[in-house]
């Protein structure tokens, strides 16, 4: 079948969306943008293809007469977990190989006990990996870097302590190797990985016939050809990649288009990404009529929350829920990322509660966004919030309050669980337009070749200069 690909190469994550000829989403994928954008694009696209094949699988399973919808969904989830586990283990094995090579090549910095400790940590990670992908376990992230990093560091901390080794001696080969591993592209043979996954979850109860039927479905889906008919790239890194110029669209247009596609009555859109915030107005066709974005300084963007999370040793996803517990939000005016750490420590030192400080920080970010919204023309009709920050519950709550206060309570505010994909969705819609207009462009990226990461130049901030 023909698919139309949109890729949104953001500063933090890279998203891909595949559409069919009718503009229906067939798959979507996300990965961390890492230091190699070409790899990030390839991985996001592979993820989207994988998700498309899983969607086909779900449909095939639902259509088979033996299973009911609920059982099919549960089976698919187990299969998906096992599939991800297989991919994780393959990456882990590559990581092991590279780390041991690094240790081998740096004898001055390692010895037999370090070697053994690293090897033991990795074995332990292999053994505990299945729990990361079980249906009951809620994962903080799906990215290999995050999952492996978290597992490695906590094991390294424990083992360095019990065996009397320096923590740093265990961690440096991980830091080096993970950079290399995540910038390599591993060819994905969907059918064979899925077959292994199926064996792993145990399909004995299906009986011989059921197993054969499943194998057939897997084979059919694995072989199903997804022909990329057209591609459009957008996002922060769009200028750096060898995207053909005609295949590049501004993320402002893509976000406007994507949000309008999902919520056709949207006329105003706020997108808060890793390092920029955009307020966009669209017309009834989803065409952008006006926009404002933050200038040279990334204060108040997603990266700011990331920094705050690091300062508090919390996961990004933990900030919102903690802030929601506040009963007495602090008054914070500055959203400067450079000063955030100092302000945070000072307030903590003065005895203020973490949740109150966090609530104040969320409000400060959203006040900044409100200023951009006002500058772009304000909010008068349906309003949609997109970008990574809309996953933060506190950010959403504060935004809702501020929009109510400023523009009245009659407004519909949309926050879609897949808002992070709006830019990629808009890009895919443009790809479909291009194909219909007879000028499709295709994405060709070299596999894992070196690619420059754009300079993060944002102007006057000493932290960025």
């Amino acid at each position: 079948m023909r698919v139309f690909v949109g890729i949104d190469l953001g500063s933090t994550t890279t998203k891909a969306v595949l559409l069919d000829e009718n503009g229906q989403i067939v798959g979507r994928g996300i990965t961390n943008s890492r230091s190699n954008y070409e790899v990030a694009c390839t991985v996001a696209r592979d993820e989207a293809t994988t998700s498309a094949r899983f969607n086909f699988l779900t449909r095939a399973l639902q259509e088979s007469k033996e299973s009911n919808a609920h059982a099919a969904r549960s089976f698919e989830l187990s299969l998906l977990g096992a599939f991800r586990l297989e991919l994780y283990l393959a990456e882990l094995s590559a990581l092991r190989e590279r780390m041991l090579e690094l240790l081998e090549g740096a004898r001055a910095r390692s010895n037999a006990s370090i070697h053994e400790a690293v090897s033991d940590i990795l074995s332990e990670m292999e053994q505990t990996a299945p729990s990361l992908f079980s249906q009951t376990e809620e994962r903080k992230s799906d990215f290999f870097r995050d999952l492996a990093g978290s597992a490695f560091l906590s094991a390294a901390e424990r083992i360095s302590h019990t065996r009397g080794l320096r923590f740093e001696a265990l961690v440096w080969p991980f830091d080096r190797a993970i950079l290399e591993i995540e910038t390599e592209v591993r060819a994905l043979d969907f059918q064979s990985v899925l077959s292994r996954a199926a064996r792993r979850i145990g399909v004995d109860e299906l009986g011989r016939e059921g197993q054969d039927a499943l194998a057939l479905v897997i084979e059919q889906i694995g072989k199903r050809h997804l022909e990329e008919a057209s591609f459009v790239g957008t996002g922060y890194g769009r200028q750096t990649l060898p995207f053909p110029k005609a295949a590049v669209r501004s993320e402002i247009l893509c976000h406007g288009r994507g949000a309008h596609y999902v919520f056709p009555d949207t006329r105003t859109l706020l997108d808060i990404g890793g390092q920029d915030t955009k307020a966009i107005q669209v017309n009834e066709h989803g065409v952008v009529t006006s926009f404002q974005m933050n200038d040279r300084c990334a204060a108040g963007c997603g990266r700011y929350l990331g920094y705050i999370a690091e300062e508090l040793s919390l996961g990004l996803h933990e900030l919102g829920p903690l802030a929601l517990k506040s009963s007495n939000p602090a008054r914070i005016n500055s959203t400067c990322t450079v000063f955030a750490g100092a302000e945070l420590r000072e307030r903590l030192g003065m005895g203020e509660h973490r949740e109150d400080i966090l609530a104040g920080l969320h409000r400060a970010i959203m006040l900044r966004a409100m200023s951009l919204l006002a500058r772009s023309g304000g909010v008068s009709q349906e309003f949609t919030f997109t970008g990574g920050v809309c996953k933060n519950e506190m950010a959403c709550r504060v935004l809702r309050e501020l929009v109510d206060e400023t523009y009245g309570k009659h407004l519909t505010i949309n926050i879609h669980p897949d808002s992070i994909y709006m830019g990629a969705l808009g890009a895919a819609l443009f790809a479909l337009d291009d194909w219909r207009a007879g000028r499709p462009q295709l994405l060709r990226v070299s596999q894992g070749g070196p690619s420059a990461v754009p300079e993060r130049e944002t102007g006057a901030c000493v932290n960025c200069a």
Partner: protein
Amino acid sequence: MTSEAALPKDSSQKRQKQMIADHFDRLARAKEDGRKVVYTFVPGNLTELIGAFGFLPVLPEINALQSGMRGKSGGYISEAERAGHSEDVCSYVKCDFGMLKSGNIGPTGKPLPKPDLLLLSYTGCFTFMKWFEILRQEYRCPVVMLHVPYQADGRISDEMRKYVVQQLVSEVIPTMERISGRKLDEADLEERMRLSARAEDALVDVWESARHRPSPIDGYFGGVYYIGPIFSAFRGTTDAVLYYQELAAEVDERIARGDGPMTPDGPMPSERYRLVVEGPPNWTNFNEFWRMFSRERAVVVASTYTRVGGLYDLGFRHSPADPLSSLADYCLGCYTNRSLPDRVKLLEKYIRDYKADGFLINSVKSCNSFSAGQLLMLRELEKRTGVPGGFIESDLVDPRYFGRANVENRLQSYLQMLESHRSARAAS
């Protein structure tokens, strides 16, 4: 990409280069030649009067922008900040001050002479006053101020004109006579006014050539080169008349050949977007900024920045008939001395006359005087013309305020937005 050095230069360009080099040579030799030097500002400059007394003009704003283009402004600004000037102060002022503290070397590498007089013609920018206050402190030289009333109601009244003329007669000219040691030669002033008008006629022809499709000129990036002579030292000189007539003839040839404007990469093959721009360009990344437009085949058909030293296309000409009233009208009519509604009116006229697809505001971070109200102007213009406006932010000469990725993102988004509107119109 063709390197800029490899691009053939028009003869007007060569002429301009020579004129400017000669001027800076004259400045470098001023003291040994016994010539007096007047520092003054571009908007409301009294170049004919300065010339009639045999003074040589120095324009600190132009020195600052040239420092920006030569990559020197960052260092000069740091120098000024070390001396206590805040980060938010107008970057022209800090750049000029830093240059002064670093030996006052001009754009051609030769030192600039100290001023014998600071001629503060005040036309709407409050900072001008503070700027010369600082320079007076440094140079310990006299300041003469010409206070030009603000055109709040969008018209020049007789009282306003008389008020300016009176200051010229009672303050400015006597001070210049005292410093030069000679009486004003009225015949010389009249002749200069006559020459100014001739150059202004030719400059207007150049601006209006952009009504053609394709436009033979870029009225912003190219335009800042065209205004060089008339906004600096050459208004009222034969050199300026020759330069502008030569330039206008070259532009006519471009029209005849159907050529588009020159860009840093050679002639623009075909124009895709016709834009009107409000606000000065960024000088520290000037060519980079220009290429962001030219590579998208966006040509600027008219800009308000290129009118800050005189709005000749609205009909004003320096006149020998009553030179002082004419100078007063010139100062009163400067773009910087006009109100927000007047600026909107002018931009609206440009958008309509030049059949622009869009208009863009480059808002300058360190210029409070002119950035104030620009978003209001944008909304009002959208309402009046139905043409979508774009908004970018950078600075004059502080390199820290130019975020390449951000400016490029906004500009490309804006141009793609114009394209979507065009497709939507075509489809309906």
